[in-house]
């Protein structure tokens, strides 16, 4: 296959970047999208040009490292598929592909397609945990969790923290990510003691990072590699209101 790529190149966080055109030859349809970029990079190095920087690690769709806008869609055209799991057979010979980094004020571009997603870590720091210090846990089967809630919690917990939801959202909102963690913990009996405080603190943290607000476009759900449902956003809103009305976690 032959492809024309337009890739965002930006030397570092403080300079301006631009789209640069590359012709990619010898692309095999069985390659993954990242393997295609590997090949392009090998060709670039051969020509003495700096390779394109992009993040990746597991290449199995679970670590959440990879992620780029591919022809205007976060993680590319396949639903529930991370960039590393996207294969070139879903493109046609001669296609032109635009590749851009995630765009969000909270995710500044560091180089080429690499962005800083530490805002997500700070949202978790604000309360995305159950405060159980090592050693203090009760016998696991002494706390029952209905299968239904456990499955639903798992649906939410499947989030890989890739940031595609933010990237795809016309509002640059991190609601899907934040709500997934809030829901995961609120659905479990173990998460109850901190339930009210957690949602308030995490929503505040999300806002502090400068993400936009959710207007239910549902772009996030459509690009999410784990198909996390926007219903969790509604759940977050419900948790927030519940906490506010109960008045806990507040002075």
């Amino acid at each position, binding site marked *: 296959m032959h492809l024309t790529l337009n890739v965002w190149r930006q030397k570092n966080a403080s300079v301006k970047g631009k789209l640069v055109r590359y012709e990619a030859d010898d692309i095999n349809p069985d390659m993954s999208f990242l393997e295609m970029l590997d090949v392009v990079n090998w060709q670039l190095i051969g020509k003495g040009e700096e390779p394109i920087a992009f993040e990746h690690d597991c290449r199995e769709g679970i670590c959440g490292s990879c992620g780029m806008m591919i022809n205007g869609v976060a993680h590319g055209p396949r639903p529930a598929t991370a960039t590393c799991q996207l294969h070139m057979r879903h493109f046609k010979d001669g296609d032109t592909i635009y590749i851009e980094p995630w765009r969000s004020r909270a995710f500044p571009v560091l180089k080429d397609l690499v962005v800083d997603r530490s805002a997500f870590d700070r949202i*978790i720091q604000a309360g995305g945990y159950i405060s159980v210090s*090592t050693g203090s846990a009760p016998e696991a089967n002494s706390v029952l969790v209905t299968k239904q809630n456990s499955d639903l919690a798992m649906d939410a917990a499947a989030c890989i923290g890739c940031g595609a939801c933010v990237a795809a959202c016309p509002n640059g909102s991190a609601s899907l990510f934040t709500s997934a963690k809030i829901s995961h913990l609120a659905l479990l009996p173990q998460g109850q003691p901190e339930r009210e405080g957690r949602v308030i603190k995490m929503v505040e943290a999300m806002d502090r990072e400068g993400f936009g607000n959710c207007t239910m476009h549902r772009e996030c759900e459509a690009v999410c590699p784990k198909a996390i449902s926007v219903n969790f956003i509604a759940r977050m809103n419900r948790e927030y209101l519940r906490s506010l009305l109960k008045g806990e976690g507040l002075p």
Partner: protein
Amino acid sequence: MELNPKIPSGPIEQSWDRHRSEMKLVNPANKRKHTIIMVGSGLAGASAAASLAELGYQVLCFCYQDSPRRAHSIAAQGGINAAKNYRNDGDSVYRLFYDTVKGGDFRSREANVYRLAQLSVNIIDQCAAQGVPFAREYSGLLDNRSFGGAQVSRTFYARGQTGQQLLLGAYQALERQIHAGQVKMYPRTEMLDLVIIDHCARGIVARNLLTGKIESYVADAVVLATGGYANVFYLSTNAKNSNATAIWRAYKRGAAFANPCFTQIHPTCIPVSGHYQSKLTLMSESLRNDGRIWVPKQKDDKRPAIQILMPERDYYLERRYPSFGNLVPRDVASRAAKEVCDEGRGVGAHGLGVYLDFAEAIKASGVAVIREKYGNLFEMYERITAENPYEVPMRIYPAVHYTMGGLWVDYNLMSTITGLFVIGEANFSDHGANRLGASALMQGLADGYFILPYTLSDYLATAKLDKAPLDHPAFHESEGQVAGRVKKLLSIKGKRTADSIHQELGKLLWNNCGMVRTKRDLQHALEKIPEIREEFWRNVNVLGVDDEINQALEKAGRVADFLELAEVMCLDALERAESCGCHFREEFQTPDGEAQRDDEHFCHVSAWEYAGEQGKPVMHKELLEFEYVTPSQRSYK
């Protein structure tokens, strides 16, 4: 070098408890005065960092990913073992201990394994309390499955994402401590050297991967939780960036490297499709419960699977191992696949694959049942290969998956360098010569949550450490070396990418130090590796600069270390003139082709000591004694 495993005396059931009560404690008021460096934020590192911070120590935690949540542990699929015996099917701490020692082909330390089995139950309690959404039954109780050929159901799981959920639990505990100011997290920071002052590990030198700055960090103890080195083979199921650099640099500072040749090769991975292949994908072992493995009886039979009739197929595992059939342990299944492919009976474009066929299972129990059990795996397979496993048999081939070898540690998880602890896959671990499924997660978390917090406290309480200043010459010297190496890599400006050299090394290792090893092949590899290394230092091309993100530079540094490590792996494989577990030396097999251990000469851990750039590493032995499980010949016939 003296290898003292410091195994507590007395009955094995009580050793850990007694040892725990005898260890010294650090006065709570003094804990905050101690700083601990934790390199790694995987299951082992995150759990240890969080637990130590909860105790009151100041922890500096490092990882090279942008977030601790992305450590390679995230990729583990199958599950985690624990001797809870919730199924009432006869499991016990002793049985888990026994299975692990036997599965490891009697090359692990009994006391460690026993402790691991004991602690396994606490891990599940801890993780459930953290909100890990383990699979449940309708009763609300935890569900179990049997895994990796175990005869009891002791594996806990969270869909096919157990590692992810366990890691997120530990990550969240870590983030809580970061918020509390107890842990300072250094993401995108790669440790490049260990600093030793007065014979004690006192710090590290690391490179900030964003700015390229080389900086020193000082502490009272250093812990390496940096994972395995399977990527030395280039192609493996490990995350692309997993590497050996941290443990390798520690080795060069004096930490012994134990059993480097023990690498696990997993039988059910998706075969390689081309030279551009960047990594291999594991398909869960559970597939072997229902799928039947076969190849054509004819050589070079290129017909599509469906046209090959029953009598023309060789169900070679069922034929050779009638009682275990397709469920033989990983090492046995992998080797058998290699043999049939070597005979020219492999399937797929490159002939490196065997069929894993679900046709009969689908016929017997219906598509719905199979979909319910394996739907997501089938989907993953189809996504990668564009073949529909409901209609055509899957193709699988073995791939490097895990390294049992690692830095040698004593019972307290301390390496041969005082004050340097090693946990998780990075140490030489409790798995002997072969790891059983669902036991790496267990080991990483046992180390991190429940062992290190005690043993490290004991060390801090008893060690007499002076204040180490950051401007100590040892730091300067090390920073200089690290910077010099970075400069050197950038200045070679040769013709080849680090990847291509890594590929070359990987292929060499796979062919000569892979599933089947021979003296001749290993000697061949030992001749070749220095040549590749030389080629690397003469002809690698690393573009870019050193003061901003430079992934090619990171990669090159890691490959350089792999090029040295590979040599010690081959040395170790050559030295161990027996077959055991995953280490199969063709010269040493039973008449029917099984691994032939030599307990008289090799019932030991081989720990290699660095002997300078020119010297040949020196091998030390830790003799293994088996008081509880008598070594026997594994048989799966």
